């Protein structure tokens, strides 16, 4: 019953976010600040993880291809498919649920604990619009970060494959082009966009409606991470079934 109530409150929150918008003059710098905080500040970790995971996928594929009749370019094919279809959109999103999500919950939660949200509401400001809307807009740029993740992941696979002596660069490029279906990239970006909205809104919900003090801010961050991850995984299944099934 509590879960149903929470889902209802979450839906109401989403509607409230778009009501009574804050003046553009005030909203614009908030959006730029959030793009910097949520997207640009995450690029380092996204690039680092993507590069090494791409490399690991290539090495593991190479080590499992023991049959000499299987072409070596399958290493690149597998790396490309893994990175584009699953690793970059889903795995990176779960990492972002931790990094960006905990930032969102703790920053909004701290504002709740220190009565800053009450101060906004007393002034007549739509606190949900003021705090959550810039985060949603900033997360619309998240697919660009995922595009970088895809590129770097494949680059990592190429470096691990070629410099590890598993295949030649020409084989890797041939494998990358093998049976390429552009729709898979579209599918990946649709997923990314949905996950971006999840990462922006579920942690905001847990931060905005939290009760208690500093300890509860920490608990709310953990809860937000768990629920964001669970939602991403469930939506990943549903979207894959709908878009590829």
């Amino acid at each position, binding site marked *: 019953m509590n879960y149903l109530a929470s889902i209802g409150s979450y839906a109401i929150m989403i509607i409230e976010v778009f009501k009574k918008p804050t003046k553009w003059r005030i909203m614009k710098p908030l959006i730029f600040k959030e793009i910097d905080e949520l997207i640009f500040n995450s690029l380092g970790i996204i690039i680092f993880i993507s590069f090494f995971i791409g490399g690991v996928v290539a090495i593991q594929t190479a080590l499992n291809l023991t049959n000499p009749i299987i072409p070596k370019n399958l290493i690149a094919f597998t790396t490309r498919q893994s990175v584009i279809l699953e690793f970059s959109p889903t795995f990176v999103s779960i990492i972002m649920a931790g990094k960006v999500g905990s930032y969102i919950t703790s920053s909004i939660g701290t504002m709740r604990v220190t*009565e800053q949200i*009450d101060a906004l509401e*007393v002034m007549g400001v739509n606190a949900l619009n003021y705090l959550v809307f810039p985060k949603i807009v900033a997360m619309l740029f998240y697919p660009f970060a995922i595009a970088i993740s895809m590129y770097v992941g494949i680059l990592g696979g190429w470096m691990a494959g070629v410099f590890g002596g598993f295949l030649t660069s020409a084989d890797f490029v041939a494998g990358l082009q093998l049976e390429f279906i552009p729709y898979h990239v579209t599918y990946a970006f649709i997923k990314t966009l949905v996950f971006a909205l999840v990462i922006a809104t579920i942690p905001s919900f847990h931060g905005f409606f939290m009760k208690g003090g500093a300890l509860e801010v920490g608990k709310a961050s953990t809860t937000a991470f768990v629920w964001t991850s669970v939602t991403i995984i469930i939506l990943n299944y549903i979207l894959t079934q709908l878009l590829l099934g």
Partner: protein
Amino acid sequence: MIEVENIHKSFGDAHVLKGISTTFSKGKTNLIIGQSGSGKTVFLKCLLGLFTPEEGVIRYDGKDYSKLSPEERRNLRQEMGMVFQGSALFDSMTVEGNVRFPLEMFTKQAKSEMQDRVDFVLKRVNLVDAHDRFPAEISGGMQKRVAIARAIVMNPKYLFCDEPNSGLDPKTAILIDNLIHEITEEYDITTVINTHDMNSVMEIGKKIIFLKDGLKAWEGTNKEIFRTDNEAVTNFVYSSDLFKKVRQMYIEERN
């Protein structure tokens, strides 16, 4: 003026406010006192419109809050200033940014006009050299003054303060009390202060209401509170040794 008629507020099974009625006059510092858990904060949040009472009426200069449209409520809220217990300054903004925020949000003033107003209110609360500092870089007393400046920058009709001098040393607490009192009289504001502090009661309590278990147990002025025979009030007021001695002296003088 704020008129409160028979307001009730519950949270689940807990009946916190059990029918409070009172009037808060314009140009006066009205104090709400009572022990922790007596319903003071809930009462103040009802006055601010943060909580909706299940029963009763709150009128702001004759306007019944429950009958206002959402737009009218927003407009009314822009006529309210609030000083929170922990100041509630926006920690990502400078002192100046905090004070300028309501002006940027709700007015169409030119930047120079806003700057003049911000400078004026910061000067009024005796903060002239803290414009570019962040809340974390200033003392608790200065934070309270910034909070007061932010609360009055829009020329509010109603000023609400939740424990405005909690956590401050006695000297700074008196300065804050006096500042609120001066501003109230100067701008003819209806000020409602929620406090535990007996110094505030003595200094600025032009009207005091005492809450006990969600009910108004007593109402009077700072002069009357030391003479009352209401047991709940005397137990509260004379819970400190200092005030017990003051009362003893008062009784001895009278006899």
